[in-house]
């Protein structure tokens, strides 16, 4: 995925100006920056929720003109939201099956007539979804509704839904927010695993520096919509501009 010269303004304020960012396949690319720096907006551009005023988005070399969110899954991309965005009135399993929807082939007619093929596919999808749930260790909750589940579990359901699409580019917006230390470590391992074993490239927005520094191969730092630094963690960590704008004096 390659974003170049992205500029976004909302009414008066400039959320992004001429931001360049390229994700190297199979690596984890961190995006950090103060609140309101434009990180989520950058994701929104990459997902087609926000149409940039200027700049180009290209994927695997070829340029994407008008990108719509619903094209995303088709392009092998998946994203988790800064909030949870779970489907509250269907079971956890169903939530994940929706994520896997891009692999379904059944047409309207098949559904309407409940053709055997459709039923078979349904079962296949459910099994696929179940696998993902088990991989994230939340298989036990498959039949529950998200509403009353503990927060970390819900975070994982959201992640599972994204993984069920079997993307090769995964965008995670603050996946660790609100998680305890233990869960955060597991998350870190998971993300690294995705990149290492499954060669999935990951774009990661986080405010938890230790996590970011641990899992990212490369980091882009935004401030007031500008890219003020980018490069490997160690470089960024000690970049004075970053220290001033983002990390503040003492790093925790």
């Amino acid at each position, binding site marked *: 995925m390659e974003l170049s010269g992205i500029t976004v303004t909302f009414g008066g304020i400039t959320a992004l100006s001429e931001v360049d960012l390229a994700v190297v396949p199979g690596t984890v690319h961190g995006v950090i920056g103060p609140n309101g720096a434009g990180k989520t907006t950058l994701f929104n551009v990459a997902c087609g929720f926000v149409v940039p005023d200027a700049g180009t988005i290209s994927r695997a070399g070829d340029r994407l003109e008008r990108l719509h969110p619903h094209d995303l899954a088709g392009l092998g991309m998946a994203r988790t939201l800064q909030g949870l*965005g779970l489907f509250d009135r269907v079971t956890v399993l169903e939530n994940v099956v929706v994520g896997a929807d891009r692999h379904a082939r059944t047409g309207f007619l098949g559904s309407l007539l409940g053709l055997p093929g459709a039923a078979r596919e349904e079962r296949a999808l459910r099994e696929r979804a179940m696998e993902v749930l088990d991989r994230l260790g939340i298989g036990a909750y498959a039949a529950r509704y998200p509403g009353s589940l503990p*927060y970390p579990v819900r975070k994982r359901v959201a992640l599972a839904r994204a993984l069920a699409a079997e993307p090769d580019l995964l965008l995670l917006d603050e996946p660790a927010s609100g998680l305890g230390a233990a869960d955060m470590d597991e998350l870190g391992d998971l993300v690294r695993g995705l990149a290492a074993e499954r060669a999935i490239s990951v774009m990661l927005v986080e405010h938890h520096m230790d996590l970011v520094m641990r899992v990212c191969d490369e980091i882009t730092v935004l401030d007031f919509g500008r890219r003020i630094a980018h490069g490997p963690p160690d470089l960024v960590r000690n970049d004075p501009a970053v220290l001033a704008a983002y990390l503040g004096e003492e790093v925790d």
Partner: protein
Amino acid sequence: MTALRTWWAGSLLGRHLLLALVGLVVVVVVLESSSDFRNLQLASMAYLGIAAGGLTVLTGLNGQISLGHGALMAIGAYTAALLLDDRDAGTPLPLVVLAAIAVTLLVGVVVGAAAARLHGPYLAGATLALAVAVPGIALYFKEELGGEQGLRVVLPDIPAWVLDLAFFVTGQDLTRSRYVAYLAWLTLIVTFVLLANLSRGRVGRRWRAVRDDEVAAELAGIRLGRARVSAFVVSAAAAGAAGAMMAVTVRLAAPSGFTITLSLTLLTAVVLGGLGSLTGALLGAALLTFLPQVVTDLGVDAGLSDIQAAELSPLVYGLVMVAVILLAPAGLVGTARTALLRRRLRRTGPASDKPGPASDVPGPDAPPAVPTTPTAATTTSTTSKGTTT
């Protein structure tokens, strides 16, 4: 036994067909054992049920409120009426119904597309306007659509083979009203099987996803517009079939038969029965079909004058609506299911608060008290740190 259970869980179509078969048997038994009058009442229950079934899919599964389904029924009814203008109008009834469905479906596409971007009260307003506008069209085109008087519907004679079949199966002659009732209920069963298939399959899942969270649904590759329009079209088609059946039962398609009241009646049936549940839709239809007459009769028996009794019936009707909403906010089916669920919860603890077993009904949606209003979204106290709101 276990094999059977796995099959039951596995094959959707098989399950629905089995239920349909059972339903069919029940229908035959009931219709054969009840008077002509009851048959006709049951026929009206059936067409209300069909329309309600379509609406419950739209509102319950896709979250679109429509106050205009009466208008869609009108379109189905007028189509049927135009095709059945005299005894020897060649078109066989099944074709008539299909035609009615087709025409309504087209209208559904247009309206659905226009409504696809609307939400909550804005959608309600648009569909409400639709409900009052359509009868006006019938008034305006007097020549073609018969104006205020509407179009008479002439039921073609019952085909000989049907008569024979009926006699063969039941040993009784098939009266016209019973014939109509059979038509209506057959249509209902077919419609419900199809709706059940949809709502349990991929399409239904997409509808639910869009209902619960548009952004997340879109990210999963679902086109919001398509999902919403398809839901609208499906329920429109059902309304069309219902309209055709209504025309056949009432023997008339007239504007005053399709006032806003009809649309609201449908919505009421759906909610009272239990949103998103076909069984609920049927229950609601039954309630609204039989309640008025029952109340009136009770009133008369209680010594009221006919007029007082007549005025009593809407009063009770309204009170029932209020009562159900206050006492059983999830509708009859929904509340029953919740009660069931509560019991299981108490037995097995929270670890498995999975709702009732897969039934003929789409859903089980909305676990107890998961609100859907913006107002309510925040009152679920479940710790949600998503700083999205």
